[in-house]
């Protein structure tokens, strides 16, 4: 008779003890490579006709969004700018110089954040790109009260690590004191590894931004 009771008790004991283990749950093992953490996101304004774009402007610098007192790291700016130019040229678009006297169809503005910071709606465009002289071609005269206008549901979040955000704006169609952003490309990843490795990942992922946006080339 004793064994009759002991058996269910043993099962119950195993279950109660194992439930503690169960509650912690399971999770996938971590990725093997740093590049496995890289993420590329793109989004377009579906009402914008990219087939009419023939010219673009790209500044000679990358804007860095850092906390007060922090020094921006410009190590990767040349890689970012050269890869963006390569990809935009490959679309068949012509790069215009901001001092050339002619406005372009779109303006491509790269920004980098290195730490946790909100981007998108909370982003003060004037603080980072309002100084750019190329805006002089586009009426009306803008001031710091203006902001970006993004397509609906654009991914806006805080970024804990290195994030490159490429905004493609249509400066010819300002609306309600906002500049329409017709395309965004976001690259997020860990800023770990050697310079060559990070540069290579930046190039690969900027290339990916355009690969997954075939509507840009029409």
């Amino acid at each position, binding site marked *: 008779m004793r064994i009759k*009771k002991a058996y269910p008790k043993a*099962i119950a004991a195993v279950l109660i003890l*194992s*439930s503690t283990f169960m509650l912690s749950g399971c999770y996938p093992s971590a990725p093997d490579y740093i590049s496995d953490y*890289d993420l590329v996101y793109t989004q377009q304004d579906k009402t914008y006709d990219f087939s009419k774009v023939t010219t673009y402007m790209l500044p000679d610098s990358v804007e860095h969004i850092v906390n007060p007192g922090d020094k921006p790291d410009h190590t990767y700016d040349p890689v970012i700018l050269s890869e963006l130019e390569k990809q935009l040229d490959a679309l068949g678009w012509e790069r215009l110089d901001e001092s050339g006297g002619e406005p372009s169809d779109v303006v491509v503005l790269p920004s980098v954040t290195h730490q946790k910071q909100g981007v998108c709606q909370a982003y003060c465009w004037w603080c980072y790109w309002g100084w750019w002289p190329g805006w002089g071609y586009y009426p009306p005269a803008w001031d710091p009260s203006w902001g970006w206008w993004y397509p609906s549901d654009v991914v806006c979040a805080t970024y804990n690590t290195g994030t490159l955000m490429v905004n493609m704006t249509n400066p010819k169609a300002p609306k309600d004191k906002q500049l329409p952003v017709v395309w965004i490309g976001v690259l997020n990843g860990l800023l770990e590894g050697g310079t060559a490795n990070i540069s290579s990942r930046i190039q690969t992922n900027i290339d990916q931004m355009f690969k*997954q946006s075939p509507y840009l080339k029409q």
Partner: protein
Amino acid sequence: MKYLLTIIAALTFYTALQAQQTAEFSYQVSFPTGDFKDFVSKTSWVGFSGAYRHRLKNPQLSLGGAFTWFYFQDKKGVGTFPTAEGTVHGNRSNYTNIYQLVALVQYDFKNPKERVVPYVRVGVGGAYQDQRTDIGLYIVQSDGVQFAANADLGVRFNKDENHGIFIAATYNTLPAANGMIATSFFGVKLGISGWGH
């Protein structure tokens, strides 16, 4: 919620020791179906369940409860896929933990003390599920409580009056809720059972 489920499960098994009842422990391999298969297509090798049943006057009929934990994962790898508004490229893993507590009704097709006893079982209750997608450094999470139901068709092999093992084909379903994808899967369950008086 999962802590509440554990407390209820612990009380259930304590109660099971106080009266004529059956306690069970089982392991289950599960195969996703339906929309859930799009989320996780891989077979799950993690599924553990504890159950207790109290025999009624008709010994072929028993009522009880079961607490089950399932884990499914599918490392999709690096790829490009659309979202509601844009396109994402990255290394993606989909996975979910399910903690399920159901009330059971079981009917044995023979006297439960015979050597081989086929049976059918139905369970209805609730579950806490935590569906997640890891992509890059981000986690997209949908979790919450949802309805849960399952059905088993199995055979128990009794070693003696008090011990047995059983094998069953089972089907689980958890409708979409709280942003979670509708979850359904077939399974093969292998377990042990014991009787108390």
